[in-house]
Structures are given as structure tokens and as C-alpha cells.
């Protein structure tokens, strides 16, 4: 039977790997080129890389970022692609069909679009028509308002759109999205678990897979995400501060009765 997927999300900012908290604090972890072989060894089911760089400048002034050809994200993707033998999703500042194509020819299996999809929803349909819908992931960042509504934010959590998360996700599906990567700005980096109500509401409204993300602090959080309706579970920070996160994460899922690839 089909297995439930466990997916690390790796964040890149100005050419370096970072961890984030509440979409604001970005602590540098390392160099993606040095780490690529290590990530490929993890017994996980897919890898998602998101470039969350703010501007177009990739110069942090650090010496270690000049290792290898880190002059632009596509070069990083090319290097990652050579050492990645599981499905690879690339996202961040993708705004056109040409941007998508540039990722696919360098080894990405799927691309993720976020702000550009909200600004230009037709991009989802055009991407699906050109590359097949299973290659198009729409990433949605959500913050809860004071009255509990789930609002979609763009530009790395800086811009409120006024859109409801469930409505936007349903619209993305109808336009041709193959999957939704659902992130909670409130839970990001807190380790307090997924926003399971959010996961549940979005999953119930869609037929395409929803990948839950943001908030994992313990391996038991994965099962809660699956029970809430997530087709796959993702996490960003836990990989960098827990040992054997792949094996222990999957064991916790298996113990909870979830079919996983061991």
C-alpha cells in the first residue's frame, strides 16, 4: 500500500541553510553544498528546499558561502540534484513558467509556488498544463487572526492577503495544484505541534494531498498531523537539533499504526 511520506523542509537564505522561528528569526545552520550528501543519506521520502531569501543579493559577506558555486539558487539546485535520489521539490521566488523550467532541467521533480500564485493564480494552471499537475506544489502560509480566522500571508509572512486559507487552498486545487504545502506562521519553530485544526479544515476541503508543516517538536506530532488528514508530514527544524530524526520519526509513526517506508 501507499506509504505516508515524511519530508524534511530545508530553508535557504542567501545561499546558506537556516532554521526559522515564527517566520522571523533565521539562524544560520550551514552550507547546503557541504550538507547535501548527509541529507541524501537520511531515510526520508522526499526533500523540499525553500529559498526564503529576502532580496536578490546573495552576498552575506561570509567566507564559507563562497564554497562551491553558491552564486545563485539554481547552482545550489544543480549540486543538490546530483546527490538526491528521492523526489525533490524546489521553491522560493518562482514567478514564471521559465523559472519553473529552470528548476526542472536542473533535477527538481516538483516546484513550489507561494506569493506568485496568490498574485497571479493563472500561474498554477499554466504550470500544471505545461509540466503536469503532479509537478506543481502550492505552498500556503497561514496566520490566525485574533478572532481565530485562518488568513493567508505572502512575502515570507509579511503581507496579509485577506484570503481564507481553506478557500485559497480549494481554489489552488481547482486551478491545477498537485499538492498543498501548508505552513503555520504561528507554529513555526515553536515545537508545539502542528495546528491540527488548520490541517483538518484544509484536508477536508480538498482531494489533493496536503503536506502538514510547521511546529513539529516531538515525533508524536507526526501522527497527530496524519490523523488530522495530512497525506504527508513535513518538518524543518527537528532535523537539525535531534539525532536520528529520520529513523526515530518513522518509528514513532509506525508505532502509531501509520504505514511508512522503513
Amino acid at each position, binding site marked *: 500500500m501507499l506509504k505516508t511520506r515524511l519530508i524534511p523542509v530545508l530553508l535557504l537564505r542567501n545561499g546558506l541553510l537556516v532554521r526559522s522561528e515564527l517566520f522571523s528569526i533565521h539562524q544560520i545552520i550551514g552550507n547546503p553544498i557541504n550538507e547535501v550528501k548527509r541529507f541524501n543519506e537520511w531515510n526520508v*521520502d522526499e526533500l523540499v528546499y525553500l529559498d526564503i531569501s529576502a532580496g536578490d543579493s546573495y552576498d552575506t559577506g561570509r567566507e564559507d558561502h563562497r564554497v562551491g558555486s553558491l552564486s545563485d539558487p539554481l547552482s545550489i539546485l544543480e549540486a543538490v*540534484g*546530483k546527490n538526491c*535520489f528521492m523526489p525533490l521539490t524546489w521553491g522560493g521566488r518562482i514567478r514564471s513558467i521559465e523559472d519553473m523550467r529552470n528548476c526542472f532541467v536542473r*533535477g527538481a*521533480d516538483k516546484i513550489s509556488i507561494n506569493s506568485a500564485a496568490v498574485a497571479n493564480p493563472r500561474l498554477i494552471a499554466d504550470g500544471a498544463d505545461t509540466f503536469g499537475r503532479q509537478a506543481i506544489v502550492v505552498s500556503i502560509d497561514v496566520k490566525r487572526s485574533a478572532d481565530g480566522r485562518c488568513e493567508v500571508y505572502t512575502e515570507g509572512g509579511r503581507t496579509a492577503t485577506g484570503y481564507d486559507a481553506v478557500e485559497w487552498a480549494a481554489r489552488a486545487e481547482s486551478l491545477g495544484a498537485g499538492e498543498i504545502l501548508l505552513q503555520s506562521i504561528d507554529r513555526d519553530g515553536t515545537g508545539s505541534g502542528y495546528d491540527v485544526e488548520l490541517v483538518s479544515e484544509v484536508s477536508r476541503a480538498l482531494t489533493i494531498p496536503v503536506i502538514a508543516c510547521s511546529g513539529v517538536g516531538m515525533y508524536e506530532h507526526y501522527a497527530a498531523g496524519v490523523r488530522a488528514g495530512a497525506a504527508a508530514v513535513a518538518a524543518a527544524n527537528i532535523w537539525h537539533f535531534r539525532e536520528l530524526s529520520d529513523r526515530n520519526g518513522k518509528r514513532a509513526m509506525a508505532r502509531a499504526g501509520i504505514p511508512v517506508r522503513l
Partner: protein
Amino acid sequence: MSATIAVISCGIGNIRSVVNAFEYLGCKVVVAEAPALLHEADAVVLPGVGAFKAGMANLQAGGWIPALEQEVLGSKKPFLGICLGMQLLATEGFEGSRTPGLGWIEGQVRELRFDGDALRLPHIGWNNVTIPPHSVLYQKLGGEADFYFVHSYAIYAESAADDTRAYCDYGGRFLASVERENVCGVQFHPERSHKAGLKLLGNFAAMANRS
């Protein structure tokens, strides 16, 4: 001694990941954009993604079929078809209209059939394949392994042949791989199936080294 593996590039999908995987395994890889290059290779890989009809049309238009028949059926070079590349081995395909395939493996390519309720297509994700005994491709992989699938069609054969077949189940059983002497086909993507996939590709490369 390292055999040369020719990966056919004829416009039916992105071959980069397959090339990367064989290079990672230390193989000598040639991207074959013309049929003549198959003559220099020790083994042939045909990756493919997309529709059966378009796939056969590309093979025909590029003049690949005579070269494949000569090098694979004639000279018995090891051959591996991946995804659409496996489906094209079949007698015929029924994606849209009926299209003849290469006819190396008896069977028809049809949309995935379900025993009970229909499941979502494409079949996408990690699913387990029960490994047949005496398989060359799956050596050292145990009794069962998960591989990564992305497809809506598969080969169906009414009669059991004497080749080595492995099955997967997605609402119903379908052919996951086939091995007949030097001709192999896998419905899943070994270049995306992590360690199990790399082991399988390594086993195929070993076939090339032996022959």
C-alpha cells in the same frame, strides 16, 4: 572494467536524474541522442515519462527501433526500460487509441484498474513491490521493498509468461517490473527510489559489466 551505459535521450522525459544515478554509482554513462551511439554501449537504458502514443512516435521518428532490435534483441545487450520506457516494451497500448508497442513483452498497456472503488490517479508515492525469486534486478533487496511510482497506466498481461515478474498493488494488482533474459523493465523510478533504487540500478550495471 566499467561498462558503458547508454541512456537514450529522445524527448520523452527528463533523463538527468537517471544519468546522475548511474554516475553516482561510478558507471560510465553516455547520453545517446542518436541510435548509432547504442552500438558503442554495453547496456541501454530507456527512461520515459508521458503518453504511450507520443513515446512510440518519438522512437519511430528518431530511428531508434532498428537500432534497439539489433543491439538488444540481436546482440543481447542488457536493456532497462523505466516507467514509460517499460510500457513501450508491451504488445500494444490503449492510451486514447490503440497503438502498437515494441512487442518485446506480451501485454497491453491500460489505465490502472481497480478491484473495488476507484482510487486517485496518478498512482504517486512510495508503494511496496513483492520481490520474485531468481530476480537479477532485485538481488540483495530482501523479500519486499518500497519504490517511488508516478503513473496512471501499466502493463497488463492475461497469461503468465516464463519471465520474472514483480507486482505492486494500488486498488488492484499491476505489473511493477519484468525481466526476460537481457530485457528488463520497471514501472517505478529507481533513480527516485533512494537506496533500494540505487541497489537495483547497481544490479543492472553489474549485468552490463558481466556481459
